[in-house]
């Protein structure tokens, strides 16, 4: 019995710089393949968007003042991380 397909081959277009960066990662063995990298990026974005949709449906979007406070914290932590990396 034939196995059911779980993947689909498609053609995507990336900026040259991004495409070459991913190819270099794959060639260096830091990612399994370009396809795997793109698959994980798509899964990551879907998880994020699904999660936000769940939060909005369940609790509503937080008020602007609270979001501004939280986004400032996030920005500060990302900046801190980048400076210590």
């Amino acid at each position: 019995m034939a196995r059911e397909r779980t993947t689909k081959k498609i053609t995507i277009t990336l900026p040259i710089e991004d495409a070459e960066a991913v190819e270099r990662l794959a060639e260096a063995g830091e990612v399994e393949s370009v396809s795997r990298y793109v698959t994980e990026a798509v899964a990551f974005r879907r998880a994020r968007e699904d999660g936000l949709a769940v939060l909005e449906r369940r609790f509503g979007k937080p008020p602007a003042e609270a979001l501004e406070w939280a986004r400032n914290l996030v920005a500060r932590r990302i900046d801190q991380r980048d400076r210590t990396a």
Partner: protein
Amino acid sequence: MTAAFGGWVLDHHAVAAWARVQPYAQALVWSAMEVGMTVVVPAAVLPLAYADTREQDHDVLRELLELPVTLFDPLTAAEARELGRVLATAADPAALKLDALSLAHVVHAAHRRGWAVLTGNATGLRALDPSLDLDELP
């Protein structure tokens, strides 16, 4: 979701604030999710978080644990030893209260990852470790 982008360890004040649907705690989780950051809930904060919230808030609290943005730190035998070390080396043992064990798990989780703590009350955490990196809920 990956933990590679960093995030916050939540203490029981922050978890209880989430469960009460308080806007700043909800906004932090929302914003973390927007950028792929993570929140950690250490097991030892849960009893106090449940104790600090009403029965009708408990379903919301459990929902936090099921979000893709949330990591749960269990309290294993190995972790218990580490928490014992945090408590035994408290900077100000006289200031420790009922929530000491819960806060010790928070301190340990934050040190293990090198992350900040989101807290509603910095005093207890400072009593354990004055150098801890804290973000206080307004």
